[in-house]
């Protein structure tokens, strides 16, 4: 077994009202792995992702990402950890609406360390957005917005990429393009955890984890 990028030790998350979103989940993901977490709605996929990016804390158990116990971090420490180690890709994209595509990417640099316009342009160019850098998010298509979102997640060269339904709002063509980007990232050695309810998308990752009612019901390695 190689060095763990992500390790969950008997993790549970119970919301107020007794809703048990995760129930004793244990998981080991090695560095450089590409894992798809799948399951129906309400299976605990998003809760798992929120625990991994430090936006939520487990009720029980430990969540370790790159050796750091995220449950022990306060909100600012968790923010520091995210900006230095993790790239987040959202299903709903989420942008600062009054900043251009380039500025939204540069915003991630600003909170990470220093703003490097050249580097931000380069990553947008790599994702085929060279001619859309000065457009506002509202002026971009769904596929373009997702590519800007990926550029923002990758600009600080994170070791772990967490993606929440990265193709959920995209058409077939854009879906394929985004998956190609993920394949390239995987080949570069990034650890990727991707939440999806789409089994076809999930099968393109290196391994799949199937969640149901807050528990891992199946774990499969494809390659």
């Amino acid at each position: 077994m190689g060095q763990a990028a992500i390790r969950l030790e008997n993790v549970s998350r119970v919301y107020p009202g007794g809703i048990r979103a995760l129930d004793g989940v244990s998981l080991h993901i090695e560095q450089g792995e590409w894992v798809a977490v799948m399951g129906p709605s309400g299976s605990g996929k998003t809760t798992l992702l929120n625990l991994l990016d430090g936006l939520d804390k487990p009720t029980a158990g430990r969540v370790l990402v790159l050796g750091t116990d995220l449950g022990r971090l306060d909100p600012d420490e968790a923010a520091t950890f995210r900006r230095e180690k993790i790239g987040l890709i959202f299903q709903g994209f989420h942008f600062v609406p009054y900043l251009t595509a380039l500025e939204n990417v540069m915003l991630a640099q600003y909170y990470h360390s220093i703003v490097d316009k050249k580097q931000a342009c380069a990553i947008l160019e790599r994702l085929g957005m060279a001619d859309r850098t000065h457009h506002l998010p509202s002026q971009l298509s769904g596929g373009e917005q997702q590519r800007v979102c990926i550029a923002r997640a990758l600009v600080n060269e994170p070791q772990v990429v967490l993606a929440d339904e990265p193709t959920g709002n995209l058409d077939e063509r854009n879906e394929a393009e985004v998956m190609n980007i993920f394949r390239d990232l995987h080949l570069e050695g990034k650890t990727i955890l991707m939440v999806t309810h789409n089994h076809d998308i999930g099968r393109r990752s290196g391994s799949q984890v199937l969640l149901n009612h807050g528990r891992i019901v199946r774990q499969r390695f494809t390659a």
Partner: protein
Amino acid sequence: MLLRILARSLARRRSRKLLAVLTIWVGMTLVVALITLSLDVRDKINRELSAFGANIRVEPSAGAVPVRVGGYELAPRIGQIYLNEGQMEKLETLFWRNNILGVFLRLWVQVRVDGRDVPLLGIGAPHGSAAAGSVSFTPDSLKGYGHWHVKGAWPQADDECLVGVDAARELGLTPGEWVRLTLAGRTRSLRVRGIVVTGEREDGALIASLSTVQDFAGLPQKISEADVSTLTTPENKLAEKYRLDPTSLTPAEYERWSCTPYPGSVAAAIQEAIGGSAARVVRRVSETQGAVLIRMEGLMTILGGLTAVVCCLSVIGVLTSAVLERRSEVALLQAIGAHRRDVLLLFSCESAALGLLGGALAAVSGPVLGQGLVNAVFGGEAGSLGVLAILSPLLGLIVAWVACLWPVSQVLHQSTAQVLHGN
């Protein structure tokens, strides 16, 4: 990057930003106007109250026998020692000369009327005033006696007089009659123009112009006392401490006392300037002035404070909806690594810009409204206060900061995960 975000953010949703600026502008205009009014109210009220008598009396020191009861200095008996009118010019050299609103000279002599001893009071304005060289009653010489109630008319000429209400009853005098005075073998007749009620010792006296009494008594340029109407600060614990025991003040306290225009410190400065004189505070007047001023200033402070609070609440209302509608933006910033202080800095800078703009506008409109209020209430000009040009934007800044604290703290405590997932 922060400046870029700020510029873009401020340029967005302009109507909401303008509403916030407008709210701060209107609120700060009221606050600045009330400050203008309250800073002017002391001077204006003091001037209004000066009509109810002078608050400092200057007498020859040899004639002033200080008698203290419970810390209050009582009035001495009238003596046959006089001050010279010319000594009053020393008041022009006083540190507090700009606080002097009026000087009223008085000469008391005892005359006989119909075989009775009756006090005769001469009143007039000093040389150098608007009444200089005049021998008659003038508005200048009478304005310190606005609290006297005259039945009939004020004297207009040197051969006219007022009669105190008690003296008029004893002597059976009515307006229009002539009264014949005798003093050291000299006689003089004066026509009674009015009967005066003062509530003081003048009720038992005849009152004529100062020059008439000086001529009649053979006391040219002599006065028994001078009433000085001054702009003063209401007494506080320090002034009271000095009044009860002047030696109890530390050097620092004495310095502070002597550099503040308390009635006592102004009286002490007058006494020091006019050789051979004793200046004492007329408590009845100064305490009334002090009480009125304290109440007025308290009222203005409460009004100003309430206005600032109402303004703050209004701005909170505007900024709350402006901040809360950006919850997902804040959640995004935190998700990509912004600390709480980064978010606070962003909103503080935005609020500061709105507050400074609203406050800067109020720095122009506030004094104009303040001038209007001063004019409406007191009918005069308000003093110009350059400090308001700095104070107003500063107040706007503080109000905007205070107003943004609550909504920003709300979004900082939101669940970032829930907001990002649309819950």
